[in-house]
């Protein structure tokens, strides 16, 4: 059982209309995208391992307002939402899931591996924890080149048990690298609850061993995510070195499409759905008269159209030509493959 952060009373609106609508729209876009992904998986149009982001959208929303486009980001295979929040289009994302050449990486990476240099998105990584040192290295390069950019390095609660995290935290702190570590603690790594993987369930405490500033954050609400990220980013940009946030969240669906998630209770799931970030943000916008129902409905309609178009684009995009198997293996153009 994971602890559900206590319900907060209806907080007053602290941000601008533009910000709330931005968050709402992004969360809704990701939610609808993922729902269509699951549908397409059922129709066998999406194959392989597929991990959706439903329930965790507030984190992606907070990222768009707290982090600059120049900042780098790297995450794991549960990446569709983060990638879309970075500006990868739903068209290119859906076409990638369909394994089509119009996909963000030409149908070569699939659900677990999106990349975009332009969006400074350094990937979805399929090896649990591998992106932790990689994100640290991306931050190393920023510091080396003397930029003010940071690297957001995201990983799951399961990944935090890999030795690579401890090695990375130590070097990042020693060398004061501009890296923002985020553990998206959704309570489970496949069927294993956080409590079963360590004597220490409060994951933010891991940072304390390195004297790294470390905090827990409510991940079911874009405001709290934004606030925590903004504060952390400011610290990092001031040259003070890494920061670590444990963002508490929940995945509504199973680990991947094939997991029936029998290891958790319905009550636990419902307690998070009660605080659903998409619904709660909509309610807040309406209750505080930030925007009208009509404006919200217009966003809903626009998102529906966008996702329909993404699916249509994915459907109509061609499959990669078999010759593509031999492209993108080496930078060397005339590499002599064994055949």
């Amino acid at each position: 059982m994971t602890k559900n952060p206590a319900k907060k009373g209806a907080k007053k609106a602290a941000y601008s209309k533009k910000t709330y609508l931005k968050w709402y729209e992004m969360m809704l876009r990701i939610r609808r995208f993922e729902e269509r992904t699951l549908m397409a998986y059922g129709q066998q149009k999406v194959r392989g391992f597929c991990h959706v982001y439903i329930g965790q959208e507030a984190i992606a929303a907070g990222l768009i307002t707290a982090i600059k486009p120049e900042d780098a980001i790297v995450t794991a295979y549960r990446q569709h939402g983060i990638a879309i929040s970075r500006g990868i289009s739903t068209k290119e994302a859906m076409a990638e899931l369909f394994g089509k050449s119009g996909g963000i990486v030409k149908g070569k990476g699939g659900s677990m591996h999106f990349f975009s240099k332009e969006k400074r998105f350094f990937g979805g990584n399929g090896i649990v924890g591998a992106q932790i040192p990689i994100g640290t290295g991306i931050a190393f390069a920023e510091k080396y080149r003397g930029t003010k950019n940071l690297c957001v390095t995201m990983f799951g609660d399961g990944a935090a048990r890999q030795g690579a995290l401890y090695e990375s935290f130590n070097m990042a702190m020693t060398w004061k690298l501009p890296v923002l570590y985020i553990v998206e603690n959704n309570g489970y790594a496949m069927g294993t609850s956080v409590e079963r993987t360590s004597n220490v369930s409060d994951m933010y405490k891991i940072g304390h061993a390195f004297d790294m500033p470390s905090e827990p954050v409510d991940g079911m609400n874009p405001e709290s995510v934004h606030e925590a990220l903004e504060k952390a980013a400011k610290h990092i940009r001031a040259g003070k070195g890494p920061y670590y946030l444990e963002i508490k969240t929940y995945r509504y669906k199973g680990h991947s499409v094939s997991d029936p998630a029998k290891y958790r209770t319905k009550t636990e799931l419902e307690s998070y759905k009660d605080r659903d970030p998409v619904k709660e943000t909509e309610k807040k916008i309406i209750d505080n008269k930030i925007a009208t129902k009509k404006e919200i409905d217009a966003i809903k309609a626009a998102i529906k159209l966008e996702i329909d178009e993404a699916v249509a684009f994915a459907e109509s995009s061609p499959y990669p030509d078999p010759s593509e198997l031999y492209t993108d293996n080496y930078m060397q153009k005339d590499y002599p493959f064994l055949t």
Partner: protein
Amino acid sequence: MAREIALRDALREAMSEEMRRDDSVFLMGEEVAEYNGAYKVSKGMLDEFGERRVIDTPIAELGFAGIGVGAAMNGLRPIIEFMTWNFAVLAFDQIVNNAAKTLSQSAGEFNCPIVFRGPSGAAGQLAQQHSQTFESWLANCPGLKVVSTSDPYDAKGLLKTAIRDDDPICFMESEIMYGYTGEVPEEEYLIPIGKARVRREGTDVTLVSYNKMILVAEQAAEELAKEGISAEVIDLRTIRPMDHKTIVDSVKKTNRIVVIDESWPFAGVSSEITYVVQKQAFDYLDAPVIRVNAADTSLPYAGTLVDAYMPNVKHVLDAVKQVMYVR
């Protein structure tokens, strides 16, 4: 009495029988206990053996592989499950630098009786990081023995032997074959490590393969039979030590050989077989050895690229026609 059981059940029977027989045997890995195994291989084992002997780990391959090595050096017989061998790459340090070296560097003072097991090879559209075949990597390392099979009968007999073996063993299964069924006797049996199996006798050409590529070889043999070509199919079952005799004896009979191997061509299992055949049966060969491998590339996600990457029946038929000089 034999019955039809799936590969996953055959593997579980092997582990459970050995755990009943010897208290020093235990199973450790990700999701092996409460979740009953990511691919349900260890289903029910927690119930039978309890949490002392069926142990869920955090995601920490290097750590729990090393814990296995230490436990093996100190009198236990661990079975370390990797969810797939792709993730065991994190643990190669412990497998290669410790499990494989302990006996040598301690001059026989300590041995390391451990089984590292899990699925190897591609399993559909899982993309670059989840589709790799590591038999040849591990077989390259002295000190290790490498078994690779997805036949339920062979898997059960070989895994039982592996658990009793006093050396470290890498046991490679197949994700998409866990539900594949075959006849397995009720009675206990063991299969020796290092012995290939002739699955089909033939006189015109030898097809050597292992693990799920055996299905491709057997299908090809069926097709060839229709064209009047008699193919002998050999399942290596163990990669290291390799059963040279069975391969060479077959080539002496057929004078032609095609190797079907899902590993990458460069320094793959097929390269090793090719060396052995030219060394030990040079005068018997009527054609060069030809191999059918996965493509010399990473495996992308798209279905069209998976099809272009994997060895298939047509590739084998083409290869056979090449060694038989027919069109």
